[in-house]
């Protein structure tokens, strides 16, 4: 019941902000009526021309959204190559210029995406990744494998020591659980690089699992040496 009220309250806020319908009028109407009456029979709230046009657009958009959902229900996103994974994460992370974000795609046995989550987000120079958080989500969605990805706002496509350390640590944690780490993608601008493609992905357990956070630095050793990283912060 409370969830319904929450959804209706959000609906009210969304509808009034998008269409310009007066909040008080909509709230009054929703007390005893179905919210979708407003979309299906907009004249009941006596909207002006502009408001009516926005309601019309909203109705058309919802129809299009529903059609696309049907189309997409037949298309699972399958991350079965470094190229597809690179393109997928480039779409998600390519626009991030002012901060670093670490994401994980949790996959089923056919490499279909079950869920993609942002696991941490930091400043332009670094972000802290907590392996135990990844573990929590991986077990909750019963994934069989994962693909890690993060962006380098400085556009470097090199894997830093911290990137490699984090990947190793995650492999160490998930190996005994039979959850494979298939790749670690780095996105810099519109380009990407794949740890698997470069043959740098650790595939064996190197020691005891370590759940401590790893702080990723966006700058490669070369960038640090050249002072490029400092320049980005100014």
């Amino acid at each position, binding site marked *: 019941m409370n969830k319904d009220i929450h*959804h*209706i309250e*959000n*609906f009210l*806020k*969304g*509808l009034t*902000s*998008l269409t310009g319908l007066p909040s008080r009028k909509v709230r009054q109407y929703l007390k005893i009526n179905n*919210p*979708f009456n407003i979309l299906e029979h907009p004249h009941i709230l006596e909207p002006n021309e502009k408001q009516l046009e*926005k309601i019309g*657009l*909203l109705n*058309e*958009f*919802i129809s*299009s*959204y*529903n*059609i*696309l*959902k049907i*189309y*997409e229900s037949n*298309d699972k*996103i399958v991350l079965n190559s470094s190229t597809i994974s690179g*393109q*997928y994460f480039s*779409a*998600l992370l390519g*626009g*991030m*210029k002012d901060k670093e*974000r670490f*994401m994980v795609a949790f996959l089923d046995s056919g490499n279909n995406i079950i869920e*993609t989550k*942002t696991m941490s987000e930091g400043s332009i120079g670094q972000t802290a990744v907590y392996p135990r958080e990844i573990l929590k989500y991986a077990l909750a969605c019963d994934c069989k494998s994962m693909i890690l990805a993060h962006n380098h706002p400085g556009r470097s496509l090199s894997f830093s020591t911290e990137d490699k350390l984090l990947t190793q640590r995650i492999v160490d944690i998930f190996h005994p659980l039979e959850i494979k780490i298939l790749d670690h993608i780095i996105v810099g601008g519109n380009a990407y690089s794949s740890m698997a493609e470069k043959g740098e992905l650790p595939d064996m357990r190197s020691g005891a699992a370590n759940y401590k956070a790893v702080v990723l630095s966006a700058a490669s050793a070369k960038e640090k040496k050249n002072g490029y990283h400092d320049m980005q912060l100014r």
Partner: protein
Amino acid sequence: MNYQELKEKEYEKCVGLLADLIDLDADTRQKIHKYIHGMGINNFFLQIESMDLSQETSEKLKSIKAIIELSDIKRGRA
């Protein structure tokens, strides 16, 4: 027109409607088209916070999300 072409056409239409609905500029429209095309309409609305969009655009998209969420519940698809 085959299935893929129909889907592509629907993506165009959907983004066009979105642009008219929340008054998107050409760059943002193109960016959103790329996002929706790359990750799907459902994931797009799940990932609004992750995208490189202005605060104003994000807030408007969240308003649409609130409406389609209730629409999904009413249709028994949530």
